[in-house]
């Protein structure tokens, strides 16, 4: 296990530095510079423009800027936002818990509904339930998130009045954040009703963000199950007289889980992408919205820092997924 971990880290570290280069170059490839955008219609003189570019250090050659960025990075300094002037790491850490909380709820919802739906659809192949799951999954996968989110808000918040429209908690609760996770902070606050308010605010955004991963997980589980159900050892297990519960639970599901876990790991990246839209619709103060704003404003340090942190999270999750394979399938452990 340790050698596997070292091997994976050996790949991750150069990948991480590759990401720093990509993040650094991509944002600079976009036309327009941050200083011109700051000035807007008002404009500024050439001299003032040059002065501002010098203040930010953007007048230096690219390689010099990159090396100085790397130098700061190895010391744990992601730089300061050129818009808010605050440290990028501090801004990221303030917003990140909100995205994690929403993403976790969404992925848990997607797994809790997607896995059983896929399993049942596979075991009842061709049934009405199977068709319903497959049609639902296709619809969910193709759903434009923005439209879907607005639709749910109009129905559940506007017409029925069952859920709040947006935000993380009712504005009438006010307490200092401790962990940044609203569910935990609302409990810690001891304020009556705060936790339920936080939960009610999570429902719609979690459903919207879970929609695509749920569809993907249900479809992947169904097809992986169907493949394994056709294997000889499953037939043998049935011939031995094992009950359907043991055949499905012990022999089929465990083997079918490998591609499903891969897909779940990949969904973390999808969740971050989906969070950009979901956070905008539900006024959710997370990193998705922050990244989009930073890109529009050409806030180079924020975009670079944000991309890097997101890439690091995705890489760590995929590392965990790789390690999980070994736990589920001993054969993979041996070959490594």
């Amino acid at each position, binding site marked *: 296990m340790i050698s596997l971990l070292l091997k994976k880290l050996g790949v991750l570290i150069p990948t991480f530095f590759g990401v720093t280069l990509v993040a650094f170059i991509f944002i600079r490839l976009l*036309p327009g510079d941050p200083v011109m955008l700051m*000035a807007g*219609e*008002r404009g500024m003189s050439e001299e003032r423009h040059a002065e501002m570019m010098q203040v930010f250090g953007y007048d230096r050659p690219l390689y010099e800027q990159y090396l100085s960025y790397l130098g700061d990075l190895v010391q744990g300094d992601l730089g300061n936002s050129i818009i808010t*002037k605050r440290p990028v790491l501090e801004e990221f850490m303030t917003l990140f818990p909100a995205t994690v909380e929403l993403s976790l709820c969404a992925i848990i919802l997607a797994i809790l509904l997607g896995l059983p739906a896929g399993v049942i659809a596979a075991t009842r192949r061709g049934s009405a339930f199977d068709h319903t799951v497959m049609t639902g999954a296709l619809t969910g996968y193709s759903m434009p998130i923005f439209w879907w989110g607005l639709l749910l808000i109009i129905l559940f*918040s506007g017409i029925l*009045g069952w859920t*709040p429209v947006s935000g993380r908690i009712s504005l009438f609760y006010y307490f200092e954040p401790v962990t940044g996770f609203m569910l935990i902070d609302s409990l810690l606050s001891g304020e009556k*009703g705060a936790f339920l308010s936080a939960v009610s605010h999570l429902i719609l955004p979690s459903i919207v963000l879970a929609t695509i991963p749920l569809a993907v997980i249900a479809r992947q589980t169904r097809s992986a199950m169907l493949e394994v159900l056709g294997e000889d050892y499953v037939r043998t297990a049935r011939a031995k007289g094992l009950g359907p519960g043991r055949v499905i639970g012990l022999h089929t599901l465990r083997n079918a889980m490998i591609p499903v876990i891969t897909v779940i790991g990949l969904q973390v990246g999808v969740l971050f992408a989906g969070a950009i839209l979901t956070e905008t619709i539900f006024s959710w*103060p997370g990193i998705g919205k922050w990244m989009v704003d930073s890109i529009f404003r050409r806030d180079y340090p924020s975009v670079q820092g944000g991309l890097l942190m997101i890439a690091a999270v995705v890489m760590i999750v995929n590392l965990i997924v790789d390690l999980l394979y070994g736990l589920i399938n001993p054969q993979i452990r041996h070959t490594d």
Partner: protein
Amino acid sequence: MRKFPKMLATFCGISLLAAGAVGVQAKTLIYCSEGSPEGFNPSLYTSGTTFDATSRQVFNKLVEFERGTTKIVPGLAESWDVSDDGKEYTFHLRKGVKFHTTKEFTPSRDFNADDVLFSFNRQFKKDHPYHKISGGNYEYFNSMSMPDLIKEIVKVDDNTVKFVLNRPEAPMIANLAMDFASITSSEYADKMMAAGTPDVVDQKPVGTGPFQLVAYQKDAVIRYKANPDYWPGKAAIDNLVFAITPDASVRYQKLKAGECHIMPYPNPADLKAMATDPAVNLMQKEGLNVGYLAYNSLVPPFDNPVVRKALSKAINKEAILEAVFQGAGKVAKNPIPPTIWSYNDAVVDDSYDPAAAKKMLADAGVKDLSTKIWAMPVQRPYNPNARRMAELIQADWAKVGVNAEIVSYEWGEYLKRSKDKDRDGAVLLGWTGDNGDPDNFLAVLLGCDAVGSANRAQWCYKPFEDLIQKAKIVSDPAERTKLYEQAQVIFKEQSPWSTIAHSIVFEPVRKEVTGYRIDPFGGHIFYGVDLK
């Protein structure tokens, strides 16, 4: 499965409670703002979103705009005198004005001249200890040419400050009512500098304004409470909350659900529903802006005013208003909006007349003209859909035999390239006023000094220039009005732009809100607002 309806009922109860609470806690006003402030010192930023969260609630200026108008009224200065040569402005400061008491700071004295000097010298003097704090980028102060204009700022005594200028500048008073001129506490700044945390001054503001900041949760909520010692009297509401809600449709849903009382920038598609919503009062006012199409007057055949006028006559502005503004606009005939003093209503607009336009072009010897129309890539109050507008103009011009190609660039590039003196084609752009002074439109956008920068028409016309330069140094408002009225007549004769439209600003507020006024500068001001 049976538990599900119960669960929903619980959540239903919670949301109703939250909604109901808006009505019960009547003195908490919730404003669904469109975005997050960049920081809490208005002199460091230029965006209206930041000004809404800072200068318009937390700070005062020496002079202020009367709420809902562009009229200048006394603020922290009770009165002021202007010297005969127009180069010295002496402000007599208001006594007994208190700064906010916060967790970080308890003021030991009232507002005085030191605070005025600190607030301006921080921006003005490069060797000021605070000049470089928080990035040290005072873009508004710079773009209003204050460093060139101000010679020095003198403390005459504790309650008198004198601004000495390098040249007479009649719009100076209006400039000092702008957001960058907010007055901050020098005592607080000294304290934070001594503590080694000078940047705290720009994150946890201390002002003299009607509200003081309580907490800011990034991208989520800003909380304020009423300043109990506010010099004109405590605000009618006790608490002010900004619920940051970036999407316009969601803002409307929150307004409907009672989760906020006032929202800015409604989606044009929602306006009809808002107008008939019994819970909502849809307020409207003409915006302090102008959208225009600027020809490059340095390049033939656009150096000929007859050609520019002909092209203006070929544009069907009413059709543009219908298709692009969806009715939320007004045809522009002058380069300044009607809400600004000196607007010349006697000017007659170029009527839409393709036949006459065609003839004028032929008389000017222009045949088979090919040109470009530059369409902005972004949405602005003065132009909600530049691409669509460009397409309509393209079609209109095709009818008079002018072949136009539509071009667009990324916004930063667009702004940069459109300034070039040899630019090919006419540029769609616009302007929102900063200080309600005609100079802020006419000199900034059409003055000779602005050729190659904000003057996208590259138009430098002596008779016009003489008038606006004279209006800069004359302090008599009646005389200035006359000069600007004449300048507008010359502008129309010369047509360096085709003036397209002024937008109409809509602000939906809930019916229980009273005393709210739409700010002509596009700001959102909550002093004077109450809840029924």
